């Protein structure tokens, strides 16, 4: 069954695509790799999760209501905020545990999303969930990674390179100047994945979103334009949000007397 260049799949066709996976699982069982059970389990999980997401998205897209879209976006943002908090090896104590990551994720990610919708894409209505949710998802996922990497790198530096930072403070540098080389290194760490992705894209790998659009019948050059827009958006958000999260963290890890305050970190 075909529409304009786009082949819809029947459920039996999807099931047929599992043939190779079933073969692999069978071999795993035969050679007692000890993976057969978990292979079956992840397959069941994947099918359930994706079918559920499909149903949820179907509902949200049909509703095309600002409120429903906002609720969905909020759930996504909350999950990303929680993930940033969970993935920090040396989080700040108290509410600062989630403040820097959440504030930068929401402000920078939110601004970039609004920019993409209101200035670049201009859909009707502007909050069209079919565009808003996938774009917000890509922004959140990448920004979350950048922030996590940046925060881990900067708190690591302040604990492990404490002597070097304090040597700079002792020479009369301000707290910002004292930490700058370590912050620059942390920002490099935060930006490395997205920079690598930008460099490799189109040569080593075709981006998943672009592949998806091409499969869906979008002309390749149109898919490329979308991909470029997304990559620029993501790279900008990763850079700005990890920088903001690091600035907020450094502000908390130093005080107005220009001294380091590692006592404001959880030690483990």
């Amino acid at each position, binding site marked *: 069954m075909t529409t304009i260049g786009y082949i819809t799949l029947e459920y039996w066709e999807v099931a047929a695509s599992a043939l190779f996976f079933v073969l692999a699982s069978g071999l795993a069982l035969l050679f007692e790799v000890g993976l057969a059970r978990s292979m079956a389990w992840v397959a069941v999980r994947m099918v359930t999760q994706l079918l559920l997401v499909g149903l949820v998205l179907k509902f949200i897209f049909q509703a095309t209501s600002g409120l429903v879209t906002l609720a969905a976006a909020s759930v996504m943002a909350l999950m990303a905020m929680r993930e940033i908090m969970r993935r920090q090896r040396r989080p700040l104590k108290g509410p600062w545990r989630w403040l820097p990551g959440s504030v930068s994720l929401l402000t920078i990610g939110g601004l970039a999303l609004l920019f993409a919708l209101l200035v670049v894409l201009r859909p009707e209505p502007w909050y069209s969930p079919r565009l808003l949710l996938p774009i917000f998802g890509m922004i959140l996922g990448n920004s979350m990674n950048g922030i996590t990497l940046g925060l881990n790198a900067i708190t690591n530096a302040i604990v492990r*390179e404490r002597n*070097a930072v304090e040597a700079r*403070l*002792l*020479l009369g540098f301000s707290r910002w100047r004292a930490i700058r080389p370590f912050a620059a290194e942390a920002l490099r760490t935060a930006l490395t994945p997205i920079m690598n992705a930008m460099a490799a894209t189109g040569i080593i790998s075709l981006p998943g979103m672009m592949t998806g659009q091409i499969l869906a019948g979008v002309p390749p050059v149109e898919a490329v334009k979308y991909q470029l827009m997304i990559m620029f958006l993501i790279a900008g958000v990763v850079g700005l949000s990890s920088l903001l999260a690091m600035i907020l963290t450094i502000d908390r890890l130093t005080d107005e007397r220009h001294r380091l305050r590692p006592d404001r970190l959880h030690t483990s």
Partner: protein
Amino acid sequence: MLQVRDLARPPMLKPASFTLPEGTCGVIMGASGSGKSLLARAIVDLDPNEGTVRWRDHVREATPAPHWRRLIAYVPAETGWWAADVATHFPADAPARAHMEDWITTLGLKPDILARQVSHLSTGERQRLALVRALIMAPEMLILDEPTGALDAASRDRVETLMRELLNEGRTLLLITHDAAQARRLGQHFWRLEAGRLTPASPPEPEPANHAEPPA
């Protein structure tokens, strides 16, 4: 003069008060773990602390911390280095950079040491370089924490020579050491720190002659 009043960092450092006249060398003696480095860190405001410190007519609490640390330089026993090469740590625009070569020579370091990598330096070389690094910022007073701890006798004498030069120039030194002979050679005012409590002390007695003691 340096005026320290009730400087404390509970619970490790009990309130300490002392006065050190300008241009003199004060010595703080005490066993490891008695809180000597904590006291030095408190004077330069590197840890949260209580009490007041004045240097000449500067009140620490009213002076921005970076400015305060340029007046009073603290050279820890083991300091950090933030770049791989030595030269980066000696910026060309440092206020007393012009005297750097003299200090490097006085301390017995090779003139090409700036071209080397920090990781290739010995502990003793790093310790002396840290002193030069502090000096090029032109501080009025220096707190030296075990400045000869990692040095052989010859290098130790060179550091002491530099310290005397600094005193002759009118600079004030606060020396933290557990080397009684060194304290006797350089010190004019003495304190002892025991379990976080600072008390005035008399100059350390010369060691009995049968102890191998380098000549003063």
